[in-house]
Every structure is written in structure tokens, then in C-alpha cells.
């Protein structure tokens, strides 16, 4: 970064300085609390920057245009359902739409932190977990007649030791159901209306979970922090398949998982699993051969700080082979795994969103880190990301490599 008086020019890592000039505009008028924002005109198609009153660790889609966020302080927190700015969706008429703000469409209060929040598809229901026990809280987001999110019930978790709280997954089903658990032994599928457990996962060891994903109506993955992935079918009582942790996994290494439905979501075996370790090692496997690795890479993540709660890895739902990674720092990185091989090699991100670190609002010198990110389910390059300073960004990035510049 070079300083030219009021302006700094950042040479983008992709090397194209002239088109990737980062324009830092210092406030021409000095104001208390002023800061620089990276206005990368050519790197983003859209960029929206918001400041919540309290940071969130969860961002969950409740429809194509609304997301839920929630606080995680130890006492009172808010759960908010936000509608994304209309301008983002205006497409052809974008120019005529000036609306750039989030709208708080529903809000509610909770007395505990919200560490995990999942929307039950086909309903106006969300389920949360406070990270302190494995029990879940059930909420009604409300409709047009009220803007208050109300607690409607709870779901008991299994009684194992659960320091990290439960992971939650849900998919569309005729009867609203929620899959939840804090450890591999004891993951349950519970009917929301009756509270009845219709399936329980039984595994030999009780491994703490880092994620749960449905890959079809009946097949789900339980990703464990030690790198194991269990593949189970809720229709059978047969033992789940086990995909062992990738080699060179040490004692203190933590793993996070995501599963993609692959090109054909009807065939769960075409689904791919990505596993990311706390040292940045990434392994992609195929459900057809869960023990093997399709490709691997060593990601360029800064591992200075690694809070198990914050790391997220996710497949892009509408882009081939793209993975987003966050939680290691104040950036969200997008990687294209299409160029990866079975040999462990360093990979460079296709794109890095550094907005949270650059426009950080925190004054106490504590570095900002990204707490969560999600891809838009349909818009290929639109993501939402949240950070520890309460910022929430909505961004649509430009694939510079594809643009050929």
C-alpha cells in the first residue's frame, strides 16, 4: 500500500493495477470516527454496507429476499428478519430503484445467545440453539399482521455433554422436521409439531459436530470437528457410512464441512463434500467414494486466530466448483476448486472480500473477524457476510479472471 497524501493505492493481488485500482477516499471533512472504505469500482457489481447494533454469528435465508440475523451476547439479544434492498433485485430497472436499505420486517427478543439459527423450509418457523446446551428454541417469524417474532416452543436435545451446542439442519418436508445434535451419537430428527423423534443416529463414538447437512430428503451428513464425516439415511436403521478424517490431521486440528448437491440434486451420490481444517488444509471428496479425495489444496488463511464458532466453508449454490471460506480473519475468500489436483498445493483465492477489516468500526484495536457468510441461493456471485464489529455486507463480486482483464 502506498500513501499519496489522502489517497492510498492498493495493488491488487491479481496483479492488474490499472483496472483494479483501489480508491480510498478519506473523508474530505474530518468527522469523529471517520474511516477509509475501499471503493473498488470494478471489483464489485454491487456493494452494500450495513451496521447492526450488535454483531451476529448467524445469517440464514428465510426466503429469496429475506435473511435472519441474531445477537450472541450472554444476556438479552434480538432476532431480526431483514429484507434485502430492493435495488439488488431490480435487475433491468435497477437504475430507477433508489432503495438501498435493509428493512427490518420482523423482530423478537431472546434471553440467551443465538449460536445457530436454521429456517424450516416451507414454514415461517426458525429454530435456534444457544451454544450452552443441546436444546433448541422454536420461533414463529410472523406474517403480515405482526412484526414480532415469537417463541412458540422448544425441542429437547440429547443429554450428552455438549460444550459447543447443537448443529441444526432442515429440508422441505410435508411435516416440519428438524435434524439436530451436538455430537454424532445422538443426532435426532424431530417432528416439530409433536416433538416426537422419528430418527436417531447411532455411532460408535460421540464425536462433537461442526455441521449437519441434508443432501437429499433422507440422506444427511454429520461433519465432526475431528474430521470424520458420517453419511446416514433417515429411512434405514442401518449403521451410517463413515468417511474418516483426512490424513495428516493432528490432535488439535479442527475441521469444518459443507456438502453440495452437485449437478444433479436428485442423486445424492453425486454430492461433493468439502472439508476445511483449522490450518487451512482443504479436501474435497465425492459421496461415491467418501474415503478418498478428489482434490486438495492448502488455502492461504491467516491462522492467527481461530475460533471454532466462526469458521465457515460453503459451496456456491449457483456456481461450479466455487467455495467460500471465512472466519480466520476479516476477509471472505472465494476459491475455485476446478484447478485443484490430488496433490496438496497452495491455492490462491479467486476473490477476496476485505471490506470488513478495511472499514472496521471497532475502536479498541481488536482485529475484526468475519463471523458468518452465506451465498444467495440463486444469484451466482451474491454473498452476505457479517463480522464481529456488527457489520453486515451484501456484495456481488466480479470474476476478474473470467473478464479476461
Amino acid at each position, binding site marked *: 500500500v502506498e500513501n499519496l497524501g489522502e489517497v492510498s493505492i492498493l495493488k491488487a493481488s491479481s496483479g492488474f493495477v490499472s483496472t483494479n485500482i483501489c480508491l480510498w*477516499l478519506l473523508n474530505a471533512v474530518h468527522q469523529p470516527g471517520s474511516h477509509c472504505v475501499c471503493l473498488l469500482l470494478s471489483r464489485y457489481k454491487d456493494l452494500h454496507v450495513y451496521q447492526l447494533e450488535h454483531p451476529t454469528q448467524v445469517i440464514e435465508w428465510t426466503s429469496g429476499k429475506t435473511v435472519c440475523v441474531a445477537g450472541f451476547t450472554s444476556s438479552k439479544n434480538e432476532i431480526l428478519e431483514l429484507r434485502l434492498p430492493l435495488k439488488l433485485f431490480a435487475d433491468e430497472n435497477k437504475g430507477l430503484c433508489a432503495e*438501498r436499505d435493509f428493512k427490518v420486517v420482523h423482530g423478537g427478543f431472546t434471553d440467551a445467545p443465538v449460536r445457530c439459527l436454521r429456517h424450516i423450509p416451507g414454514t415461517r418457523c426458525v429454530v435456534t440453539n444457544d451454544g450452552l446446551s443441546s436444546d433448541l428454541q422454536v420461533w414463529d417469524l410472523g406474517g403480515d399482521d405482526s412484526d414480532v417474532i415469537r417463541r412458540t416452543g422448544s425441542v429437547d436435545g440429547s443429554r450428552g455433554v455438549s460444550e459447543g451446542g447443537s448443529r441444526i439442519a432442515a429440508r422441505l418436508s410435508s411435516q416440519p422436521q428438524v435434524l439436530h445434535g451436538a455430537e454424532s451419537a445422538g443426532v435426532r430428527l424431530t417432528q416439530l409439531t409433536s416433538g416426537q423423534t422419528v430418527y436417531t443416529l447411532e455411532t460408535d463414538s460421540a464425536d462433537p459436530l461442526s455441521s449437519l447437512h441434508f443432501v437429499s430428503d433422507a440422506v444427511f451428513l454429520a461433519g465432526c470437528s475431528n474430521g470424520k464425516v458420517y453419511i446416514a439415511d433417515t429411512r434405514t436403521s442401518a449403521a451410517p457410512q463413515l468417511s474418516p478424517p483426512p490424513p495428516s490431521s493432528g490432535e488439535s486440528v479442527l475441521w469444518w464441512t459443507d456438502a453440495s448437491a452437485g449437478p444433479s440434486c436428485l442423486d445424492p451420490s453425486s454430492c461433493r463434500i468439502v472439508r476445511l481444517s483449522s490450518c487451512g488444509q482443504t479436501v474435497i471428496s465425492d459421496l461415491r467414494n467418501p474415503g478418498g479425495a478428489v482434490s486438495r489444496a492448502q488455502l492461504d488463511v491467516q491462522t492467527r486466530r481461530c475460533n471454532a464458532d466462526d469458521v465457515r466453508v460453503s459451496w456456491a449454490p449457483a456456481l461450479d466448483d466455487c467455495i467460500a471460506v471465512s472466519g480466520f480473519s476479516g476477509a471472505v475468500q472465494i476459491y475455485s476448486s476446478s484447478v485443484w489436483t490430488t496433490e496438496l498445493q497452495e491455492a490462491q483465492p479467486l476473490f477476496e472480500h476485505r471490506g470488513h477489516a478495511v472499514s472496521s468500526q471497532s475502536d479498541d484495536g481488536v482485529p475484526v473477524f468475519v463471523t458468518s457468510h452465506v451465498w444467495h441461493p440463486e444469484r451466482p456471485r451474491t454473498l452476505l457476510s457479517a463480522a464481529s464489529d456488527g457489520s453486515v455486507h451484501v456484495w456481488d463480486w466480479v470474476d476478474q479472471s473470467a473478464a479476461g482483464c
Partner: protein
Amino acid sequence: RSCILVSIGGKNIMLDCGMHMGYNDDRRFPDFSYITQNGRLTDFLDCVIISHFHLDHCGALPFMSEMVGYDGPIYMTHPTKAICPILLEDFRKITVDKKGETNFFTSQMIKDCMKKVVPLNLHQTVQVDDELEIKAYYAGHVLGAAMVHIKVGSESVVYTGDYNMTPDRHLGAAWIDKCRPDILISESTYATTIRDSKRCRERDFLKKVHESIERGGKVLIPVFALGRAQELCILLETFWERMNLKAPIYFSTGLTEKANHYYKLFITWTNQKIRKTFVQRNMFEFKHIKAFDRSYADNPGPMVVFATPGMLHAGQSLQIFKKWAGNEKNMVIMPGYCVQGTIGHKILNGQRKLEMEGRSTLDVKLQVEYMSFSAHADAKGIMQLIRMAEPRNMLLVHGEAVKMEFLKGKIEQEFSIDCYMPANGETVTVTTNPSVPVDISLNLLKREMALGGPLPDPKKPRTMHGTLIMKENSLKLVSSEQALKELGLNEHQLRFTCRVQLQDPHSDTDTLHRIYTHLKSVLKGYTIQHLPDGTVMVESIVIKVSSSTEDPNTKVLLLSWSYQEIYIYL
């Protein structure tokens, strides 16, 4: 439209008098029949206060003062007073000349209305009359916007108008002291939004301008003379400098004259609260921005032009628009709201063919961009303002009740105050706890203190006995004796008597003694005395016994007491 009536301490105040921009008929005006069914409003209002120059806050003012009728004072800040008549005149021209409306105010009415205006300075208490005082606070939002504190006796209300809690390039953030009003009245329109950062809006603006210039297009930015124009100029100037761009930027001369005039007003008005947030330079000494000449519009190549008026309804901006509309490489950026009937409003609604004078049509091929730079407080901003002012009650206007429950709950929980959300036409009554100052005589105070016991706890109420005298405008508490003396009255003692008949053959003395013994056994805890003068006293009740003259076996008990509150069982 904003128009709120407040009754406080016997005074009636109208807060804002706006026009509803969505209606073409009388629904656009506030309904003044709430004040009186017919006749002028002067007798019913003690004053009118206008928060800022936006038409949804002052658009109906000339209608109210000249067509309905009001001759009392109209308060607004100096910049509002300077800018209001211009916007009103513009608005009038569009509505009457372009749309041919008849039930509308005239230019003369605007002038007559403005003659009734009394300008306000920031933080200066103004006595409207000897009981009503008002004070203006800085609101941000637009030039001259104010929040108003209204006080009558010990009751007060703060009305925010439109305000903004994040500073701008040329405006600071709203500020108010811990004035603890009984009610804080705030708009709730944006209360449920979370604002996108100013930097992203600016980025969008620069991106659009840059893209147009890069492809050789011309960019027209219609602006009002002051406010956003300066901000956008500063932004472009900095951008041009850093990106080393060569395309010319112009501003129309009409802009300079007006801007410099208002700029001077701007400086003196805002200096009071904005210290660091002010650009210390001549607003129009730019390196890359030059004065426009109308012949430049025909020059080839890319350029950016700032021109008035802001809604493309007349003048230079419209002339330039007509020249550039046919080329799809060009762009027009509308930085704000456009009134119905203007070209600006039409193109923002997607109209691509416009009917111009002489039946000619204009094909709109250039790119139309609507950008909103106006600054409003959002959910966070409202909470910040409440934290600053510490009101006892909150009132939110212009929201839909079902969409405000969450915010109401949030305010009630965080601040433990009631939050009201009246609909249009609804009245809300808020009870206050006015403190009534009373002087107490030294003698009375000393006497009460001398009654002994521990020193009184200032938080606990303590009963005392005195007389309240209201004389002229003062209230004082004195001892009863002093009150009687001052008023020249004699004290009278009232004693109540009652006669009870008993059949008792004993002597008077014996009967009395038996009554005494009986009372002593049943009325434990009361002071009962048998006095040598032949009476029994229970507290202050005196009991005497005498025989009936007709029948010595019938005894008559005479009970006499000076207080009615003591109940005795016999």
C-alpha cells in the same frame, strides 16, 4: 404529510404543515377541521413551528395561513425561511401552470405567509408568550433542519421533524441535550430500516458517472442550488483528481449565485454546533469544475453537468436534458424526490416517451438513474436520540401499528418508557407528573422538623399539616394559625355531638364508671381516661353521662368529638 397538533399546558401548537405529494385533490392538505370546523385558525393556535423546507413538512403552509387563515407567529430557522419560499414557488408553478390546478395558493400568498415568519437560532430559548417557550436544536438531514423543544411550565415536548444521526459531508449529526421531555415525537417511517453506508451510495454514484464518461457519454445531474450539489461536487472533484480524469465537469451559473448566497447563511447557522465537520473553503473553487455556458451542451465528447432546477421541470436542466435524451450513451442522475407532474417524476417512473410543448414527443434513450442521498435516522438512530434526550414517553408517527410492534417493544424494554403509535386522526393523551413549586414558611418547616423522630428521608413522602395559599401566581404553604392571621379569619373549632340512650338504673357516676371500664377492656390500644370533672375521654372523644329528666333509669350519653375519622364500637 407531516402536521401534528400538540396541546400542552393550555397552549395549542402546530408542528409542521406539510403537503402529501401523492394526492392531487384536497387529501394532499392536512385536515384542519380537527382544529375548527369553520373560520380562521388564529384563535385556536398559539404558534406554528416548521422543522425544515421539504414540501411534506411545509408544502401546505401558505394554504393554511392564507386560504384557511392564520395570523399568529410561524417559527422556523433562518435557512428554512430563506429556502422555503423558493421551493413553495417552484411547487406552485408546477402544480398550477403545468397541471392547471385551481384550488392552490398564489405567489402573493407565499409572500404574505413568509411575512408571518419569526426566525429561530439554534439553542436559543424563544418566549412565544409568557408561558410558552421554544428552542431549536440541530437536526442534520438538510440545511436548516431543526428539532424543537417546546415547554410550558414544567411540561415539555420535543418534536424531531426529520433528523439524521450520522454526519454527512456538509451536515453534522443531530444533537440534543438531556432535556428529559415528557414526550419525544419522532417519525417512524425509517425506524424499521437499517441504512446502507454513505460510502456505498457514493461508490454507486461514482461508478455510474465513470462508466458513462468511459463510453464517451454525457452525464446530467439536476440539482437544487444547495445541499447535495456541493457534496456531489466535492465527491467528483476528489475522484477526478485521484483517477486523473480529463472529462470536463460544469455547474450552471444559476447555481453559483444562489449557492454563494445560501452558503453565507449556512456558515453562520451551522457554526454553532458543527466544529470539525465543515469544509473551510469557498464552495465553488474547484480545480476540475468550471462554470457552464449553454453552448457547451453541444460540445462533443464526455462531460458532467450540474444544472438547476432539480426536478427537470423548467430552465437549464430541462434544456440540456432535451438535447441529450436521444443518445443512449448519456445519463441523467436524479439525486432526489421529484414532484408529480415534472419530467423528473415521469422518467423515474420509467416513461420513455415524453410529450413536450407543441405536441412534440421526446424519446428518452439515455440511462436514467435514481439515487437517494437523503439522510434519515434509522432504527439505531432513534435509539440513539432517545438515549440523548431521555424522554419520559415516546410517540412515533407515520408508521403502521402492526409494523411497529417490535420497535415499540424494544423502546419499552430498553428505556422503560411508554411508546405510543397513533394513526392519522387519532388523539393520544399522555399523563405527566408536573412538579408544582410551592414556598413553605420557615416557621412551619421548623415546627415540622421539631416534631422529633429521625430526619426525614427525602425519597419518602411525609405527611404534614398546613394551609396552601394561592395568591397571584405564587403558592405557599404556611401553618394554619399564620394563614388565619393573614386572611384575617377567626379559627373555629367544630365539635360533633351525638346522644345515645341507655337503660341503666345506676347512678350517673356509676354508669360512667362502668362505661369507662367496659371501653378500657374492648378498646385496647386507645388512650382512655377517666377525668376528675366527670367525663371519660377516648382519644379526643368526650363522653358524659346524665339522667333523662323524664325517667331516672334512662341515661343519656353525650358523645362529642372534633374529628370524624375515628370509628368507635359501642
